[in-house]
């Protein structure tokens, strides 16, 4: 604990002007964390329910149709799309490309617009089919 307490802690949220790159960087972490915890817990529950048979699966299906369950599922699907798109952006940035200010900003924005559009399209498809 040799840290000097008068020095600011990363990531200095209070001193920078907000921009798309910063928002997407934070969203990538937050959605990754949510998917690691809630997403993987749901994956385990879902597989266990399929293995458990129709009765066990009925509990999960009921929870998924409950308004709170639906909000959680919509949230997880949005987190999936956002993390997938910002993850693709990160893989491109890792090659050293895409750091020009305009390009960087456009692709950051595109991941946000894309994740919202894909979430809406997915749920329009699911709820529209009456599932």
């Amino acid at each position, binding site marked *: *604990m040799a*840290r000097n307490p008068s020095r600011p802690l*990363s990531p200095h949220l209070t001193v920078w002007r907000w921009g798309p790159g910063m928002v997407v960087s934070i969203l990538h*972490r937050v959605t*990754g*964390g949510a*998917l*690691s915890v809630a*997403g*993987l*817990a749901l*994956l*385990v529950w879902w*597989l*266990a*329910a*399929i*293995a458990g*048979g*129709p009765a066990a*699966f*009925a509990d999960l*299906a009921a929870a998924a149709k409950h308004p709170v369950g639906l909000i959680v599922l919509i949230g997880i699907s949005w987190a*999936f799309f956002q993390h*997938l798109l910002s*993850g*693709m952006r*990160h*893989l491109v940035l*890792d090659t050293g490309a895409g750091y020009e200010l305009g390009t960087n900003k456009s692709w950051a924005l595109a991941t946000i617009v894309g994740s919202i559009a894909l979430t809406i399209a997915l749920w329009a*498809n699911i709820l529209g089919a009456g*599932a």
Partner: protein
Amino acid sequence: MSKIENAAKVGIPDAFQGHQLGEHWIRERQWSAAMLLLGIWLLASLLMLPGLDQRTLSEWLRGASGAVPMALFIIVSFKHGLDGLKVVVDDYVQDDGNRFLLIGLLSFIAIGGAGIALFALARIAFGAAA
């Protein structure tokens, strides 16, 4: 500050610096690329199934074309999730002892969760047909 200088500061053993740190960075990206492909596979598969009921899902996961990628999805998603949470812990947990314990605990949970998920998948794939 470079990644290697930073590594030296937080007390990462010598054996894990330099060349090996670059290897680790590459491995993380390879797991990410695998996650990307398997994530798209899972989404596309669920969209193409005629329904999301228990019978349809268990039939899908009984065949090799469903069960094999799902086994890979389980392994890669728990590994990738653990990789990501490790980075978050490294960034925000300052105390060496707490960081060591927390990463150990997360690794146990991730491997345990993957084990449970793989067992459930095995029950579906190798269990008696419903």
